[in-house]
């Protein structure tokens, strides 16, 4: 069931979506109680007494998870995607979190709600890479557009309406209207982008930037480096590692969302001496993600809502957090089929990255699953809505665009609803 955002005294969120990541050391002995608390909230998103998600119009996605790295006590990481200014967002978090003390009070440095903004400033981790498929939509605007689409859908299913629309006298009119639409595709926003100056600009950007990016980041698949790599994944030689992997895979399988949307959270150690190259790849990759592709698309993949990286422990580890649609297996396939050089360019700076990168989907899949974390608490404001749907809902609602655009979008949507 979807939670409805409410407009409150905190006002409407506005502005571009972006990520925030907080990280704080867990007080001694509080690791398990914290984990249990997060799981209990996760099991009761709508009714839990700690976070009133239904009253939060700012948060698109949020996750809470624990990490352990050598030389550090266990830490709690909170990452969210929201609109606008961080200060307003923090006020919002305080407002919708009656249980803020119970959660963050288990971490060092937290002294109460009143000083939470200071706590955030001290514990926020910057994101050198961020992507959002719909950067100017808010939770409210997405839900409103979903509601319009659902209403439209229901209207067409009303008793008598389908038959009326197919009446002999109506059909020619509707066919005539339909014939005004251009092309059979459904995402007219994308088509429009493709028909305008966007592609030329993006192509030029790609032409200029990709070669140096790939050269600088030594993306395996682009250069065929290394020339030779095994086509067989050795899961045999280290039985203890295999056992651990199977146990971890089981925990991850149990951590999959029951909805259309899912999350991927990866903690990967950065190879010694490769931090600079990773930073460069993140900068250039982030630039390309923002300007090099049509709206809603990241290198041909339409199933990603949001994606961001953070670097922690002086660049010893990277945390990658994404929100995507469908099954992990499909997401992985999309990576291998379409995002190979981009992901290789980033991830090949991480330790134990399999030679051959995304050319070896079994090895790559095992590598990223090994680095993937179980997330005890995950929230999405619209968990059943795919990124493609959000793009289409925007078309149906018109978005203040011209008459023909709204008409095209509606024609296409009517075929699909």
């Amino acid at each position, binding site marked *: 069931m979807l939670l409805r955002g409410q407009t409150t005294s905190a006002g409407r969120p506005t502005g571009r979506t972006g990520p925030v990541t907080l990280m704080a050391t867990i007080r001694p002995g509080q690791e398990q109680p914290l984990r249990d608390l997060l799981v209990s909230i996760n099991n009761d998103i709508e009714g839990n007494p700690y976070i009133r998600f239904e009253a939060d119009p700012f948060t698109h996605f949020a996750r809470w998870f624990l990490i352990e790295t050598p030389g550090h006590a266990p830490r709690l990481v909170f990452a969210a995607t929201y609109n606008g200014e961080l200060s307003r967002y923090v006020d919002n978090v305080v407002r919708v979190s009656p249980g803020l003390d119970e959660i963050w009070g288990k971490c060092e440095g937290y002294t109460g709600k009143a000083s939470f903004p200071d706590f955030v400033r001290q514990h926020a981790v910057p994101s050198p890479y961020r992507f959002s498929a719909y950067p100017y939509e808010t939770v409210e605007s997405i839900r409103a557009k979903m509601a319009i689409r659902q209403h439209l859908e229901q209207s067409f299913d009303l008793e008598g309406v389908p038959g009326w629309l197919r009446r002999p006298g109506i059909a020619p009119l509707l066919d005539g209207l339909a014939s005004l639409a251009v092309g059979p595709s*459904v995402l007219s926003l994308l088509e429009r982008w493709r028909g305008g100056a966007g592609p030329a600009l993006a192509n030029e950007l790609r032409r200029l930037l990709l070669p140096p990016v790939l050269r600088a980041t030594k993306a395996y698949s682009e250069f065929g480096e290394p020339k030779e790599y095994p086509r067989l994944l050795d899961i045999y030689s280290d039985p203890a590692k295999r056992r651990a992997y*199977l146990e971890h895979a089981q925990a991850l*399988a149990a951590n999959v969302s029951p909805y259309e949307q899912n999350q991927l959270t990866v903690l990967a150690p950065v190879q010694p001496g490769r931090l600079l190259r990773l930073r460069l790849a993140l900068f250039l990759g982030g630039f390309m993600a923002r300007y090099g592709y049509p709206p809603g698309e990241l290198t041909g993949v339409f199933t990603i809502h949001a994606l961001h990286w953070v670097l922690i422990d002086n660049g010893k580890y990277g945390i990658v957090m994404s929100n995507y649609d469908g099954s992990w297996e499909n997401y992985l396939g999309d990576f291998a089929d379409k995002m190979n050089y981009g992901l290789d360019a980033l991830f090949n700076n991480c330790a134990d990255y399999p030679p051959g990168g995304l050319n070896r*989907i079994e090895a790559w899949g095992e590598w990223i699953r090994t680095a993937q974390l179980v997330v005890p608490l995950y929230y999405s404001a619209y968990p059943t809505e795919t990124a493609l749907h959000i793009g289409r809902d925007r078309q149906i609602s018109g978005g203040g665009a011209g008459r023909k655009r709204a008409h095209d979008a509606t024609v296409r949507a009517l075929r699909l609803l």
Partner: protein
Amino acid sequence: MAEFTDEDLKDIQGTILSGYGHLRYASYLFVQFADAAAAGPWLDRVAAEVTTAARWEVLPDGSKCKPPSALSFGLTFAGLRKLGLPEDALNTFEPEFIGGIVSRARVLGDSGESAPDHWEVGGPGTPEVHALLVLNSRDEESLDRGRAGLRTTLRETDGGVNEVNEQHGHRPHSSKEPFGFLDGISQPFVERSRGHPEPNQWVVQTGEFVLGYLNGYNEYALSPGVPAPCDPGDVLAPFPEGGVAGWKDLGRHGSFMVYRKLAQDVAGFWGTMAANAAREADGSPDVQDMIKLAAKCVGRWPSGAPLTLAPQHDDPALGQDASRNNRFFYQATDIAGFGCPIGAHIRRANPRDSRIYEDPQEAILTSNRHRILRRSVSFGRDLFPREDVGLGRIPRDLRDDGEERGIHLIAINASIRRQFELIQATWANPGSFNGLFDNKDTVIGDNDGTGQMTLQTPFVRRTLLNVNRLVRVRGGGYFFVPSLTALRFLGDFSLRRPVASHRGG
């Protein structure tokens, strides 16, 4: 690309490379090992009986001497454990196979009445299955004889290997499935197989179906292994690419097989079509429109003619012409789904080039990385003659008679996770497939009465509302299909029992 050698073919189970179209009767014998020592000699006997992919003898008149029956064999993870394979070896199987089909219920949408708790075979409330024998025969009599022979081998184990369930069925001459549609048309052609693919039958890399060969990603699918000391006779081959020190390849020339008993609600299926069809003057549903709606849900007409090529009405000549009935793509002529709807069964089970916003060639590549080989027969008595659907005849007062009917589905693939599971979990079940809203596969999806089936038209779409689950899961299992070499190895191995140092850990 070279063909399999005769030696390879004699090592590969025949069912992987042949659908045995001439063997229309099938029996599925599910067995359990009481103890590994008794299972050993029995496995040796089975190995002697299993039909291999060896070339069929060519008679003087040029015709092929087709086998009068075929036996295939598979082992569950529990069966392999029972045979005493050491844990390190067991852990080299895919996690999904290790967990077994019951553990995958959530992913596969096996819920409600389809939940494993209600299964006849393979569920938690039924005896644990260790192995499956699939016997295919020409007719009922030879099936009975073959099954009796297999049961004799079981009796001779003195309780060491026991039958826990038997299922059987047959494929009618019309090759129609119980809803009345031609089945088994679009099968991939396995690279290195004998013969030639049909036009537009895609050649899929060997490693998608046979372990030990490169797959669609140009790498080797995970293959189970055993520590070398478990194979003192050096029976098993080393892994490809120079091998893995200390390990032997148990999977080479083998594959994986998914068994699903799928009960089809024939009355419910046609009731759904009737409820949504146009009306005759007397208020009764228009039968031709019912058939058209059903064809839209399937993506083919009852004859097998694809809607993309025959959007308006059935074309039996096209349906029966194997050189044409699978020769189509979506992007060029039917991208919007006006012929074959975007959510139709065949457009999900094998999306060809229709994955949204993809370059057609890339989309085909993606589709071919998730294919299965299907080996199905029907079970149960027809509610009405299934061939009548193709003749435009459906009883108007169709009521369920309480009997079960449907198909036994066998899906063969090298990776259960990447092939069978992906099709069911990512393409058939999600309501958001390919940008749709609330549309699950009408035929095999885990519908719950709230979703719909959208039929795209040039303007306002037509919908089937409140689609119920029309195919219920009644049983299932994940099986390893060993090569003949691996089967003999397992028989000997279970007799010898594993070396202590390789157990557990």
